């Protein structure tokens, strides 16, 4: 119990429960399986990006360019789908998008590692480079009219239930993909040497290097993993809206970072967990969804999200301060 109270995740979870109760009291349709499945599907995109972002933040870096990477991978697969649509399948689409994402991520990592340029600077620069070049090449055109199999995949449900009115709903395949990615990410972070070394590098890169960790390899892995998630995310986005627009993702970097940070990942590296990240995404998701269901004007949405972020980081900063003070006192004694 005491251990639970010291964990950031507990507080995020309590906030989620509190919000859910309030929303349900005002509008009972919040607490239905139908709404839950809908939410899970529509926030799979943010959730996928968040997994990659978590890895980068734990490693002590940050990646602003992932939206531009996702724009490039999304656009590439859209062009391919329109050209060779019938000869492709969903696996190859994911592979192509993921592969390009990995390459662009590797490029980020190489610049960050070899020239010792801070990750935030590098990725701001590459964001502009990737996004600028893509917009010039694509001329800002929207792409749609994908093959039918691509649209059908979006509607696959692992199991189907019916509302009293006979409208089908259920667990979407897209949510399942997101869950699988979560499991993979969680496993890597928790149970592999690779995952533990990412924590080590984020906690203190100098000592990690002296302890014999291969920082180049770790950097390459972390940023290419972010690129992979960006690539997969772009396919999810294309599946969800069946349209690829060059300007639909860039500018949303901070939303994802906010979600991961709400979940307890620190921007100085070394801390953060998959559970926290999921909770952070969930909190943002139910706030957005809940405000709509409570008939709060969407105009207020950002004010409330911003306020919740400030309160949350404020509380955790305050708790940090108190715990360090306690720590100092015990050390002196």
């Amino acid at each position: 119990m005491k251990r639970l109270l010291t964990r950031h995740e507990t507080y995020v979870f309590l906030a989620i429960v509190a919000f859910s109760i309030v929303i349900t009291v005002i509008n009972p349709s919040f607490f239905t399986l139908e709404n839950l499945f809908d939410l899970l599907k529509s926030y799979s995109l943010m959730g996928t990006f968040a997994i990659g972002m978590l890895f980068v933040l734990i490693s002590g870096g940050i990646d602003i360019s992932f939206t531009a990477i996702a724009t490039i991978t999304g656009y590439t697969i859209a062009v391919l789908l329109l050209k060779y649509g019938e000869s492709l399948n969903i696996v190859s689409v994911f592979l192509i998008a993921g592969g390009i994402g990995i390459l662009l991520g590797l490029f980020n990592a190489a610049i960050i590692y070899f020239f010792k340029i801070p990750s935030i600077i590098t990725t701001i620069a590459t964001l502009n480079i990737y996004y600028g070049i893509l917009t010039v090449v694509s001329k800002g055109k929207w792409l749609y009219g994908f093959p039918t199999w691509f649209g059908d995949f979006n509607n696959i449900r692992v199991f189907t239930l019916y509302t009293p009115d006979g409208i089908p709903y259920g667990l979407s395949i897209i949510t399942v993909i997101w869950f699988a990615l979560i499991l993979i990410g969680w496993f890597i972070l928790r149970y592999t040497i690779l995952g533990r070394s990412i924590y080590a590098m984020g906690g203190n890169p100098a000592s990690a290097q002296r302890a014999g960790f291969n920082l180049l390899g770790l950097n390459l892995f972390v940023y290419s993993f972010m690129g992979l998630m960006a690539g997969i995310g772009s396919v999810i986005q294309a599946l969800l809206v069946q349209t690829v627009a060059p300007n639909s993702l860039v500018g949303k970097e901070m939303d994802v970072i906010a979600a991961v940070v709400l979940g307890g990942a620190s921007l100085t590296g070394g801390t953060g967990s998959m559970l926290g990240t999921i909770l952070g995404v969930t909190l943002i998701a139910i706030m957005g969804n809940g405000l709509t269901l409570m008939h709060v004007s969407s105009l207020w949405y950002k004010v409330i999200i911003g306020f919740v972020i400030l309160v949350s980081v404020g509380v955790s900063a305050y708790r940090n301060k108190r715990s360090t003070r306690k720590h100092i006192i015990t050390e002196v004694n």
Partner: protein
Amino acid sequence: MLRKFSHFLVLSVVMVFIMLLMWGFTGNDFMNLGNFQSMAYQMPELGVLSLAMMIAMLTSGINLSIIATANLSGIVIALILTNTLSADNGSAGTIWVVALAILAGLIVSALVGALNGFLIAVLDISPILATLGTMIMVSGISIVLTEGYVISGFPPAMLAIGNGDLLGIPVPILVFLACAGVMSVILNNTPLGTRIYLLGSNPVACFYSGVDNRAVLFRTYIISGIYSGVAAVIMISRFNSAKADYGESYLLLTVLAAVLGGVSAAGGFGKVSGLFLSLVILQMISSGLNLMGISNFLTLALWGIVLIVVMVINYFIENQQQKRRIA
């Protein structure tokens, strides 16, 4: 010392190089008074915002809320102007209303700055998170105030700030030069400036040398807020309107401009002169490509490439110097 000097040198060389390149590509379209004048109209928005970003970065922080702050204070100014000056546009009192409206806008931006300062200095929230939160909240307030619409239609006195000229020199560049001058004085000639550099390079040492770190941070973010407010004045005057989401793409560009200008992301280093050169470089690329009829988005890409190239050059110079020092 050597490091900062060399960065200034690198920037100067890059600037001359780009100027010659643009001259070569576009000929006298680039090298004429008219083009330099239009550059002087375009640069100040990003320029003043970059100054706001720079001072926060010097303390090893960052201020992600500058654009949101600018939009909010722009909206406050616009609301005051459109609500008080519907009928009598030409009267002598207009200029006072404009002045008061601008003052109100600056106060709002200072208040947002104070909120950031409180969160960062008193509550010890890391700057990137605190300002991310205020960014989202403040832009939300702007949306609530405007209901997402554009507010437009300002009196001539307001429009003159963004579009007028004094003896052929555009007013916005004068505003920018004044802002840069004030910033330079604050940083170089006041105790606050010295403390900002000290705090940025080593907060612990700064604290133990008797500096009240909290007060320094608090003031830094208020100044950063006020500069966002000044940028708002230029921005809404040039657009003749205010909206909740104007200039959102500027946010990361201000970081880019500051870093290109030699402001260290880790804090403690950076001069107004470097930032000025970097802004001129960025503006020349953008104007030159524009003259060649090339898409704005390629400009973004080139800005990114220039940033990386300059950082890489710096890396090699620093390496070289370190080797020499060891030898």
